[in-house]
């Protein structure tokens, strides 16, 4: 158990570094697509060069977020609820990953 934390520490930093360009790209996209209609939005997102980074932002973001959330849970919850919340944080993250992967498939690769 003693060395488990080092891997998490490195994963948190590594995902943070990957997220820096993805967040900047996402914020620029919010500005440039603020006025889009549904059709414009869907056309833009159907391009795999857009849907893949978008999903990467969501997937890496929720991975990084789960590490941070687990730190907060472990700091403040000391009962059996702690383990329940830690498992829940994984379930939510896996659900988000599934949604993101399915979205990319539907937007850019299905028929």
């Amino acid at each position, binding site marked *: 158990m003693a060395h488990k934390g080092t891997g998490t520490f490195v994963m948190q930093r590594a995902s943070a570094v990957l997220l820096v360009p993805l967040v900047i790209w996402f914020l620029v996209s919010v500005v440039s697509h603020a006025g889009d209609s549904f059709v414009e939005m869907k056309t833009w997102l159907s391009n795999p060069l857009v849907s893949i980074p978008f999903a990467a932002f969501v997937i890496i973001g929720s991975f990084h977020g*789960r590490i941070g959330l687990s730190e*907060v849970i472990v700091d403040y919850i000391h009962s059996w609820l702690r383990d329940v919340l830690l498992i829940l944080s994984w379930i939510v993250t896996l659900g988000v990953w599934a*949604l993101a992967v399915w979205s990319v498939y539907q937007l850019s690769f299905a028929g």
Partner: protein
Amino acid sequence: MAASPLPHADKPLSPHLQIWRFTVTMAASITHRGTGVALYAGTALLAFWLIAVAQGPGFFYPIGGFLTSLPGMAILGGYIWALSFHLMNGLRYLYWDSGRGFDPKMARMTSWLVYVGSIALTALIFFLGYSARGGV
């Protein structure tokens, strides 16, 4: 604390809030956590937004309509500010990880900078976004 089978459960904890005297660096640390938790939820919502676009207009219009309403804009604005703050303060932490930037005066100054910068960036994004829509 009872031993736990889960990997996160037996690690050292952060010091608790009440033992600290208020400083802006402490405020930035708390805000980093707060925005982080909010972003975890916000990113889950963003995944639902994405799947709604993929599914088609029937799924998208209720969500898209909500986002242009006042509560929707408040959530969107909060998400964008949280993202801006967490990005800027996160860059500050990555710089700290390199072993630099720990001088207290510098740390206080960069904390203020992150607050001012993230609010300014959010305002800029909303201003440019509204301009792109051709005004309100």
